[in-house]
C-alpha cells in the first residue's frame, strides 16, 4: 500500500465511512452542545482524490473560508481540517459572542473562538475513533488561516499526501436545518495509517 496508488475495496471503504460516521456524529453532538442548537451531519464520504483536484472540493478556489488544521500524532498519524465558509463564521461569532462582525475584521478573540470550536470538534472526533479502534491518537494545537479556499485546501492536502499523487479524505459535511451553519470536516490519515486503522477494525491491511 505504500506506493503511489491507494486501493480500497468496498468493504474497507465502508469501514472507513463508519469511522467517519461515528467520529463526526460525536463531534456534531459536541458542537450542538456548545451552540445550543441542533447540528446534523451528512453521510460521510471516503474519497481518494488526485492532488490536482483538491482546491475546489468546497467550492470556488477564491471563496474566503476559515481553515482550522490539526496534526494528528500517535498510532495512526494524519491531519484534521475544518473548513467554514464566511457566512458560517459570521453566524458562529454572532451566536457565541453576541457580536456582528465581518470575517475580514476578525481579531484574536474571534480567531480563538474558531480555533476552540475546532479543538472541541476534533477532540471528540478523535476520541470516538480511538474508542472504536483502540488506537491512541493525539491532536496538536490548532493552526488557523482565513484565506482563499484553494490556497488552504491545496497546501493542506499536498503536505498530507505522502505519495505526491493523491490523498484519502474521510469527509463529512455539517449543517443546521436553517442553512446558517455549514462546514466541512476532513480526516486525512497518512497512507501508512490506513492499514493500521483497518487492521484495528478486523480488516487485514493488505489486499
Amino acid at each position, binding site marked *: 500500500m505504500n506506493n503511489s496508488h491507494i486501493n480500497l475495496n468496498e468493504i474497507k471503504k465502508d469501514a472507513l465511512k463508519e469511522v467517519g460516521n461515528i467520529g463526526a456524529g460525536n463531534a456534531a453532538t459536541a458542537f450542538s452542545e456548545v451552540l445550543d442548537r441542533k447540528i446534523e451531519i451528512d453521510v460521510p464520504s471516503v474519497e481518494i482524490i488526485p*492532488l*490536482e*483536484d*483538491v*482546491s475546489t472540493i468546497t467550492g*470556488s*478556489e*477564491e471563496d*474566503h473560508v476559515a*481553515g482550522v*488544521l490539526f*496534526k494528528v500524532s500517535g498510532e495512526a498519524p494524519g491531519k484534521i481540517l475544518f473548513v467554514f465558509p464566511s457566512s458560517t463564521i459570521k453566524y458562529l461569532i454572532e451566536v457565541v459572542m453576541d457580536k456582528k462582525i465581518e470575517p*475580514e475584521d476578525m481579531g484574536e478573540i474571534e480567531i480563538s473562538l474558531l480555533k476552540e470550536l475546532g479543538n472541541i470538534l476534533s477532540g471528540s472526533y478523535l476520541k470516538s475513533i480511538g474508542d472504536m479502534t483502540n488506537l491512541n491518537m493525539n491532536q*496538536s*494545537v490548532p*493552526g*488557523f*488561516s*482565513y*484565506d*482563499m*479556499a*484553494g*490556497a*488552504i*485546501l*491545496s*497546501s*493542506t492536502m*499536498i*503536505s498530507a499526501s505522502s505519495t*505526491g499523487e493523491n490523498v484519502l479524505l474521510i469527509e463529512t459535511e455539517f449543517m443546521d436545518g436553517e442553512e446558517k451553519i455549514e462546514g466541512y470536516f476532513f480526516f486525512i490519515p497518512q497512507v501508512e495509517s490506513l492499514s493500521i486503522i483497518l487492521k484495528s477494525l478486523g480488516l487485514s491491511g493488505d489486499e
Partner: protein
Amino acid sequence: MNNDEIRIKMAEYTVSKPPHVLVTLGLGSCIGLALYDKYLKVGGLIHFMLPYSNGKKNTAKYADSGIPFLIEEMVKIGARKRNIVAKIVGGAKMFNFGEENSAMNIGKRNSEAAKEILKTKSIKIVGEDIGEDFGRTMRFYTESGKVKVTSYKREDLII
C-alpha cells in the same frame, strides 16, 4: 472575468501571446511561475505543486519537470530562450505550528527549487512575491509582461 483570460489550474501550464492574460487562482504553497520573452511577447505560466518529480512524467505538476517543458513550449510558439525572464509567485506557508523544521515547508522548498532550476537554465528572475502566510491569485498580462498579485490580506501588487 475578461474574455482574454485563460485559467490555469493546479498542475497545468499554458503558453500564449497578447492579448491573453494567464490567470491562476488561490496559490498557497504552490508556485505560479510566469516566463516572458518581452521582445517577441510570448508568455508562459505554470502552476506547479511540488519541487521534484523523482522521474515521474506528469510534467506540469513538478518544478523540475515542468519548468524546462514550459521553456520548450514557449520556444515552439516563437520565443527565444535567451530573451526569457521569470517572475515567481506563491510558495506560502498557510498554517503556522511554530515548531516546524524547514523540510516540512513545501512552499519554501517550491520557491527554492524554482530558483535553482531557473539558474541552471540561465533565466533571470525579474520579480517575485513569495513566502509569508497568505494565498495569492496571479494575473500575467502577456502584452506588458506585468503580473498582478491579488490577496485578501494586502493591496494588489504589480510586479
